[in-house]
């Protein structure tokens, strides 16, 4: 904690408490102790005092105890010699200040000072609290900004108010700077200020800001069901605000002692302070989720910076593009005659690349098209395109880049009239004439990505900026970087082995129809649906810790060959509802993993060959085991352990851990041409790694035969290695 801030806050606290004491003494001199005091139309008495002391103040006399409590929290005023301010001391002073300020506000009417006058609205009634406070709690309103002080001029004041409104933030205003107030500035600009416009001026004194914090406390009482009481209850109320009410203080103009003290009070609630002046910063996290005090922020950057520092998540309900969009349009094709503009395919270079950056290097919401826009080129033009997405987030990790990048496909498939195929540098993108006529431009691809990434991945993405290069120079300049990133990601993924991690991820998404099924996803064995690999599991857990993917610690090894670990087995017992005791990661014979029903492929043993076959879901024909995919699926699925039959994600076949306990890939004697095609060169390469010359060519498929007898003959002819390995069971 900065010495300057702490000292100022403590001095401010003392001054506030003294003022409250004086006003209280005066009031007691003139009025009966039983004189009712309080704010209009509320059941929460003086809410800050109720929250922080647990006491309901309803009569003048009650204030003595409250102000007394505030006094007792104040640390000694720091002098040049006596130096012990620490965060705790300043926070205590802040809490004392809030209590004193609320007392001052409650005493004002007794001193003939109105709370509500001109455009100042004074404290908020319960009726409005019920209507508006819920929006803070249920997320319709992402948070509130308590604006303290005034801007350098009226125009800047209006600009700031508009920027905050645009983000749906509730704006509270209070305090003054040398007599000037933000509300007066807005008033001169003719801006409407009331609860409908979400611009709420409390009062011209710094003490009036306490109503904003009182509002937050009352929301916690009402919608969080929190009860006032002792220290523990107070802690709960503060925590509730810290976790749920995304508020922050904007310190506008000079910050005096009382404002420092009020800010310290707000920090107790987890509300950080963003200042436009050069006050000392308090960066390390502690009470607030991230920074506590950030200073010297330009006015136009204040809303964005505040949103970032407080961790406010803003969800866009309607993505601002001129065409309809949604998963319904995902499969839509744009045919050649409908094309307004086209990128990639076999014609031009078109790629997408998503990179993570430090927080201060991404300008959230910035979308640029570098090169011609849709209107600058003739209809049907083919342009190169680089979709360059830069994201930043407090919890973003470089590992998540590929996951987010993979979503670009579904995001860009959603607008009506946009066709997106492929990924990385195999992208093919078309925009239809209809979409163009409706006003859709290349720039809107960025709009979609911006909002979808922020909406769908709020836990890891805080900021997004998109650059769309549409001329060769830019595209070619970026390409080597992208290509290098693809490669290094692949290498990193390749180097990620089961041995090198301590944690696997579970997936229980399929339990709805296979109640005892659970997938254990390891770096070298992806989920059997093919849609979830280990990194996805990791990211999914980061995004939603209550979701279907949980981290599972491996624990001690039970059998390194089969791939059994104590931690995994314990987890399985529980997650399968006691149905299974053990899972082998690397065997389809001994304690194989269960199969739900959405496996991409089935691997099953072929008696008499010493080998196995792998058949994919699309393959409709007969197989050497005498069953089609669908009859096999019946045997394999349903969440049972069926030795000799497992459902797998196609690319598990490429893993070095592919049924490694049973002999591995060398057991593969038959598969479908579709699988061979899909795995392509990667399968050839894996085959070569086995060190069995000509192995790839020895794997039969449906063009060789679809029955067992001829298969055995074929295997003998080509001398397939499985024949020598002996039967699997």
């Amino acid at each position, binding site marked *: 904690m900065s010495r300057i801030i702490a000292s100022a806050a403590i001095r401010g606290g003392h001054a506030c408490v003294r003022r409250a004491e004086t006003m209280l003494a005066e009031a007691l001199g003139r009025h009966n102790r039983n004189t009712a005091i309080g704010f209009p139309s509320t059941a929460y008495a003086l809410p800050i005092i109720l929250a922080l002391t647990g006491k309901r103040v309803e009569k003048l006399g009650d204030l003595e105890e409250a102000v007394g409590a505030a006094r007792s929290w104040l640390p000694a005023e720091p002098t040049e010699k006596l130096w012990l301010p620490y965060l705790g001391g300043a926070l205590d002073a802040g809490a004392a200040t809030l209590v004193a300020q609320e007392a001052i506000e409650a005493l004002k009417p007794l001193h003939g000072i109105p709370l509500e006058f001109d455009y100042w609205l004074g404290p908020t009634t319960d009726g409005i609290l019920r209507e508006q406070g819920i929006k803070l709690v*249920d997320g*319709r309103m992402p948070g509130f900004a308590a604006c303290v002080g005034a801007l350098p001029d009226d125009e800047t004041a209006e600009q700031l108010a508009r920027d905050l409104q645009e983000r749906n933030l509730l704006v509270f205003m209070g305090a003054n700077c040398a007599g000037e107030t933000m509300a007066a500035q807005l008033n001169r600009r003719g801006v409407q200020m009331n609860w409908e416009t979400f611009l709420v001026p409390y009062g011209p004194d710094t003490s009036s800001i306490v109503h904003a914090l009182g509002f937050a406390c009352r929301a916690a009482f009402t919608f*969080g*069901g929190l009860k006032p009481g002792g220290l523990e209850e107070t802690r709960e109320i503060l925590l509730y605000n810290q976790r749920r009410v995304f508020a922050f203080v904007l310190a506008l103009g000079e910050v005096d002692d009382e404002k420092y003290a009020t800010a310290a009070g707000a920090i107790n609630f987890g509300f950080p302070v963003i200042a436009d002046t050069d006050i000392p910063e308090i960066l390390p996290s502690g009470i607030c989720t991230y920074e506590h005090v950030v200073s010297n922020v330009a006015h136009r950057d204040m809303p964005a910076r505040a949103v970032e520092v407080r961790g406010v998540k803003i969800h866009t309900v309607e993505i601002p593009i001129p065409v309809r969009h949604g998963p319904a349009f995902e499969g839509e094709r744009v045919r050649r005659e409908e094309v307004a503009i086209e990128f990639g395919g076999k014609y031009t270079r078109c790629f997408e690349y998503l990179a993570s950056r430090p927080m201060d290097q991404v300008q959230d919401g910035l979308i640029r098209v570098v090169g011609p826009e849709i209107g600058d080129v003739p209809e049907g033009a083919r342009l190169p395109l680089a979709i360059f997405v830069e994201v930043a987030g407090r919890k973003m990790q470089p590992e998540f880049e590929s996951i987010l990048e993979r979503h670009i496909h579904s995001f860009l498939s959603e607008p009506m009239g946009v066709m997106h195929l492929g990924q990385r540098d195999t992208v093919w993108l078309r925009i239809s004439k209809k979409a163009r006529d409706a006003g859709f431009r290349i720039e809107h691809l960025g709009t979609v990505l911006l909002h979808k990434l922020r909406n769908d991945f709020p836990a890891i993405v805080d900021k997004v900026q998109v650059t769309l290069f549409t001329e060769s120079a830019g595209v070619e300049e970026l390409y080597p970087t992208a290509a290098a990133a693809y490669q290094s990601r692949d290498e990193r993924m390749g180097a990620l082995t089961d041995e090198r991690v301590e944690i696997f991820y579970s997936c229980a998404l399929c339990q*709805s129809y296979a109640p005892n099924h659970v997938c254990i996803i390891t770096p070298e064995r992806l989920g059997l649906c093919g849609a979830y690999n280990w990194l996805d599991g990791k990211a999914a857990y980061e995004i939603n810790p209550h*979701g279907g993917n949980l981290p599972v610690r491996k624990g001690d090894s039970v059998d390194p060959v089969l791939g059994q670990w104590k931690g995994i087995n314990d987890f399985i017992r529980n997650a399968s509802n006691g149905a299974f005791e053990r899972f082998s990661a690397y065997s389809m014979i001994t304690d194989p993993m269960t199969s739900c029903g959405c496996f991409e492929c089935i691997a099953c043993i072929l008696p008499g060959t010493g080998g196995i076959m792998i058949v994919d879901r699309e393959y409709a024909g007969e197989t050497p085991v005498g069953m089609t995919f669908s009859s096999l699926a019946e045997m394999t699925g349903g969440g049972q352990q069926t030795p000799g039959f497992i459902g797998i994600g196609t690319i598990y076949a490429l893993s070095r851990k592919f049924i490694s306990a049973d002999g591995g890939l060398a057991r593969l004697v038959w598969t479908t041409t579709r699988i061979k095609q899909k795995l392509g060169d990667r399968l050839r390469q894996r085959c070569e790694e086995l060190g069995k010359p000509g192995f790839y060519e020895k794997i039969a498929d449906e063009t060789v035969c679809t029955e067992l007898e001829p298969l055995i003959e074929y295997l003998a002819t080509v001398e397939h290695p499985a024949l020598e390995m002996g039967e699997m069971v």
Partner: protein
Amino acid sequence: MSLDLKPKKWAGALREVTLGAGSRRPVAVGGGNGLPLHTFEAAFPHRPALALEITDVDPVRWVESVRQPWEGVLGRPAEAARRAVADFGADLLLVHLMGTHTDRGNRSPEQAAADVGAVLEAVNVPLIVKGPGAGQKQNTVLARVAEDCRGEGLALHSATNEDYKTLAAVAVAYGHALVGESPIDVNMAKQLNILLADSNVDLNRVLIDPLTGGLGYGLEYSYSVMERIRLAALGGDAMLNCPIVCLVGEEAWKAKEAKVPADKEPLWGSQRERGIHWEVATAMTLIEAGAEVVVLRHPETLDRIRKQLDSWFGSEPSHDREGVVQNSFRATDEHR
């Protein structure tokens, strides 16, 4: 030959949830410590409660045979409520505010609150209030109803994984119970309860709607999901041990078998009988799977189920002095 029963003891038990407060005569559900209807080895303080569904506007899509007993009161919720309680003997009611749906009349939150208010005036049983379906409209409608009817202990139907924060907040603020709806998925049901608990909702005020299919339309899925929820609850999972409510009527009367008139399918017999059978079969199955509250549409169904429950649980529910319905049942020697 005598059968030697070895009673199974479970680590956990269901939470007991009391529906209705204020001017309501409360009905408590749940609290059992064994598998549904295993009265020979477990104690069930409450028998399943039977609700009838009434609507704010004329439910034009209801088939004739289910409209018929409600003739004259469809779309008049207070009158329908009176009939449901006084004539048909419902333990509680589900008020379906279908007319608030943007495509079915788009009635305002104020109108909805007035409708529920009228029902509260007309009868004194607890109410489950169902909105037009998850989304902004439902939130504003139910928030308004919750505020205007504060303290009545309504059960708001329903919060979902994607959209629970508003209803959680108003349930807490105005003292109502909450129904959490999950799409036939035990993990989603659990996740939702975790989220609700995280929003400071007391899980002793929560019912699970696991989303049911009607007979022939996914009922077996519902059955096994409910079975799993119950097994987890009895195993001690404090995030899944809320009582279950099933909207039976809605599903059963959707089935083609319940809707097709006899002249179209002469072999299928009387449409009225068929529909009631369909609803009875669906409801009985779900009660066996563990439903603590079933919401029905046809009073005849309710009557038949009530008789069946009587034969299992011994007697009609009686009311004690506080007005709490004591539909209690404990395993007795006689039943062992």
